[in-house]
């Protein structure tokens, strides 16, 4: 059943990234789904169909707002104009969650349209924490920080990624968005153990999970190199890692991201239902354990 929450709180269910090609069908058929998520930057036009559809969809579903351009990991100051635009979107659509990335994208040459990695040093820790403080102050709310998918490491890094993220959360009070696909992609690329990554992640701060598909490639030494492409179904090992994370966390709002080669609504919705089935199965297992104990 449709469980619309007027306050916009994101339920511990599965949702999907809202794609323009699905909007008409969603508005017409009102599918049973936990929530939708949109990229903030795609709604920074003055009006038009994107806002018309989002307004209509927001009337029936909780919404999560996901930024991709704030460049929190940049050394340079945050773009105050951009932060103000995010604030406007939050005021207008009242999303249950707002999240951004541990990444940077701003440069003298212009906006580098990717989520670029940061070295894990004391200097970066300070800069990222200052920026998150500023974001939370301007927005007047807590933000979630997402762990990155990375393809290389910085020789100067002095923190392991999970310690770095834990320290940011501790210093700023931000919440965390655990991207399980990014954990698997980064762990494969960096030759970490993805399950140990989950174990050492500051799980108490996690308020949302992301799942997506990746592409398999190799580097020049024939080592596996996974690319975070969001263009296919969630891969089998990512589902396994997700079940493991849910076992540790309990049910958490879980988003399917599928941003390129977007499938039919039906196929995308089925991915969300699969995530929900895993949450349900893990929950029932725990209930049985509790009953047996």
């Amino acid at each position, binding site marked *: 059943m449709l469980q619309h929450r007027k306050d916009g709180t994101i339920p511990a269910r599965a949702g999907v990234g809202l794609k323009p090609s699905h909007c008409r069908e969603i508005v017409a058929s009102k599918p049973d789904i936990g929530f939708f998520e949109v990229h903030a930057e795609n709604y*920074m036009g003055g009006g038009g169909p994107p*806002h018309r559809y989002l307004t209509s969809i927001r009337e029936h579903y909780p919404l999560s707002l996901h930024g991709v351009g704030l460049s929190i990991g940049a050394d340079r100051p945050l773009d105050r104009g951009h932060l103000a635009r995010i604030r406007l979107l939050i005021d207008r659509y009242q999303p249950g969650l707002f999240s951004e990335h541990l990444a940077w994208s701003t440069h003298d040459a212009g906006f580098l349209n990717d989520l670029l990695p940061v070295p894990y040093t004391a200097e970066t820790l300070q800069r990222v924490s200052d920026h998150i403080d500023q974001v939370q102050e301007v927005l007047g709310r807590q933000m979630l920080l997402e762990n990155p998918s990375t393809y290389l490491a910085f020789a100067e890094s002095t923190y392991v990624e999970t310690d770095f993220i834990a320290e940011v959360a501790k210093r700023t009070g931000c919440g965390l968005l655990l991207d399980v696909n990014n954990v698997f992609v980064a762990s494969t690329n960096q030759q970490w153990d993805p399950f140990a990554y989950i174990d050492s992640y500051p799980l108490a701060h996690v308020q949302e999970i992301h799942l997506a598909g990746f592409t398999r490639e190799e580097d020049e030494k024939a080592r596996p190199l996974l690319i975070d492409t969001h263009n296919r179904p969630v891969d089998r090992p990512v589902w396994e890692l997700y079940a493991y994370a849910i076992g540790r966390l309990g049910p958490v709002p879980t988003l399917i991201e599928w941003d390129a080669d977007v499938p039919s609504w039906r196929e995308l919705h089925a991915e969300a239902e699969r995530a929900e089935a895993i949450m349900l199965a893990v929950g029932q297992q725990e209930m049985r354990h509790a009953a047996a104990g």
Partner: protein
Amino acid sequence: MPRLADRQREFGSALLDPARPLPWGLVGPDGEPSLRRFSVYRNNVVVGLIDALKDAFPAVHRIVGDEFFKGLAHAYVVQEPPASPILLDYGAGFPSFIGKFEPAAVLPYLPDVARIERAWMEAYHAPEAASLDLAGLTALAPDDFIDIGFSLHPSLRIVRSPFPALTIWRMNTGDDEPALVDLASGGEDALIVRPAAEVEVRRMPPGGAEFVEQLAAEASVGEALRAAARCDEEFDLAANLAGLFEAGALTGWRLKAQMTDGKAA
């Protein structure tokens, strides 16, 4: 150890310029430098922006083909990367860039087709406004009509072309089959506007583009009429005004002397 600022300056510059060497200390799991891994970021930035342009300029893409478009877009991306994270704003300079791109010079109408696509995208994302109904003008004395000015819909764009750019755009949009177009058949001016949910693209009658551009510059109907008639002696005021009302292109009117906006002026 590089400072974060230096690190990011160098990283970003090397991303956009493949001739630059791999920056120091970007390594694989064995601690050794890996160009292949850095190239993932290079590729993500360039391919992501080329794809954004492909989405925003589908008719240009269809006219020149995928391979040519990638070359064209790549050259643009490197020369004019986006100034902001709002990618729906990206590509404003693309039509002019096409006009200066030597290999595209054999398609002289291509920049104007790109201008129509850019105008379409701007109209799509423009702020909302209620269109003016003809009935809203009934209170106006006929003698005053020539002295009023109109406010135009915020989504309205005009693209003037010495080529049949609108015909070419249309036949490369959606499912239409391209056919031969006589480039010497004369210029076409296009009106692009989104009064409600759908972007509408119409061909302007003779002098119509000049008339609307005058109105946009806050000329009165009389002033705009004179300019349009100078531009094209076939200019028909009644037909043009009717067309603008029908397109939902007008949002308000004012007596020029009063300069107060809205129907109740």
